[in-house]
């Protein structure tokens, strides 16, 4: 299979799906995270538990949900509960292993912005949708995976607005705040894979997707990128992964 057989977005979804393993409880944001989580459940992790903020525990959709409240999420769930309950009884106490989030802007320390682009909240350059469930997903899941298309505009030194706290300004700020979960431990983009340095918590490039150079990643990063000593190359999507991913997308 050559690089032309799949898109960068497909590689990103496949890489993100692979990060999930069976039996994990995964709080799924809509869009890229939902695509990856559903792909994982339909490939190597059939007993992955998908939780959506619309109030579904254990959804098992056979197509990608069109929205966070797609009827298929309720119809295939083990339990359907109210929105207050999903946040209070299920997310807040730390019952969820992985929070799977997207981002409009992500910074060097894994902080997420989905609120405003620009320095002035009252007069933003771009008004984004806002927080949704993300701040508490980022705070209370055991760990957070972020899936985001990477560019100098989306991958910035410091987000314009901290909608969801990642590692703050690093060096243990998250622990000092008393947040329960480990925060972003993995970031997957259309170019590669990043993990926080264990001490400084700065995101470090640890993997590139096939055909992507470290230089290309650097070009698409808005800060002076640190690169791991060993940069792995992500195995290309298998034909099975691609087939399932495309079938999921086609069905919806």
């Amino acid at each position, binding site marked *: 299979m050559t690089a032309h057989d799949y898109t960068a977005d497909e590689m990103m979804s496949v890489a993100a799906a692979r990060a999930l393993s069976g039996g994990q409880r995964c709080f799924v944001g809509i869009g890229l995270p939902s695509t990856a989580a559903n792909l994982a459940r339909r490939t190597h992790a059939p007993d992955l538990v998908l939780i959506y903020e619309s109030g579904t525990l254990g959804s098992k959709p056979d197509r990608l949900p069109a929205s966070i409240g797609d009827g298929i999420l309720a119809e295939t769930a083990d339990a*359907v509960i109210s929105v207050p309950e999903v946040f209070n009884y299920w997310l807040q106490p730390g019952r969820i292993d992985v929070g799977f989030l997207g981002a409009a802007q992500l910074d060097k320390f894994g902080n997420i912005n989905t609120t405003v682009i620009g320095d002035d909240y009252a007069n933003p350059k771009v008004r984004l949708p806002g927080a949704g469930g993300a701040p508490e997903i980022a705070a209370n899941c055991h760990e957070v995976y972020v899936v985001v298309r990477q560019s100098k505009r989306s991958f910035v030194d410091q987000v314009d607005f901290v909608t969801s706290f990642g590692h703050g300004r690093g060096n243990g700020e998250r622990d000092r705040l008393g947040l329960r979960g480990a925060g972003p431990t993995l970031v997957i983009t259309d170019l590669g894979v990043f993990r926080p340095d264990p001490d400084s918590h700065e995101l470090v490039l640890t993997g590139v997707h096939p055909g992507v150079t470290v230089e290309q990643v650097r070009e698409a990063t808005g800060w002076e990128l640190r690169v791991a000593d060993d940069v792995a190359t992500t195995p290309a999507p298998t034909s099975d992964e691609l087939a399932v991913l495309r079938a999921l997308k086609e069905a919806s």
Partner: protein
Amino acid sequence: MADLASLSDAIAELVHDGDVVALEGFTHLIPVAAGHEIIRQGRRDLTLVRMTPDIVYDQLIGAGCARKLIFSWGGNPGVGSLHRFRDAVQHGWPVPLEIEEHSHAGMANRYVAGASGLPFAVLRGYLGTDLPNVTDTIKPITCPFTGETLTAVPAINPDVAIVHAQRADRAGNVQMWGLVGVQKEAVLAARGSLVTVEEVVDELEPVPGGMVLPSWAVDLVAEVPGGAHPSYAQGYSERDNAYYAAWDPISRDRGEFERWVERVRSGDEVRT
């Protein structure tokens, strides 16, 4: 006990200029027809409350009904941005829109506090984020037993809550199922409430996952088949994804939007 009313009478009776109004519905069972009736009746200066303002709030905002929005996520789900919302926030068109912005967990708990007759709710939320810097309804609170600091948010008690449900009986008992979001809390938190329903039936057959709001907890019930369109009512209709996509170009263009509002005002807006 809830009275049955027409949608136009219900909106006229319950929604007044300057009111705090919550039309709730988490993607499912969104009371869109009620929103259009508010546009038709030309309400002004509303404070609109909703966890997930989507296109019906884009429409209300674009039509100049609102002066403030209290929310946690605003967008056209699966499509993109709310352009009328952006235009109001960024350019004050057609009127400036003040915003009060929370997270879902915070908004859900504000409704819970409202429904519970408490002035505030406590959660583990907002820590480390910039939201408390821009929203003054987020404050720290200390546990009197452990000394731990948590976050408090004030109750929301709208003047009126409007939700859509599958059905009601003739006594005004309301039944809904599927994703029920924060609808019960919104109705119980509000001083007045309207439930639009797909149909009024003689008897409410129990349904798995069903929830009943007793008649005495609701003010008015209006039979509005398809009243959630383009969202859906599980067991009655499917989500009209094409409508959401079609909204994007209308919403992007003030002229297109104004023509759309004209159609709503004249009653021409085709529902399905």
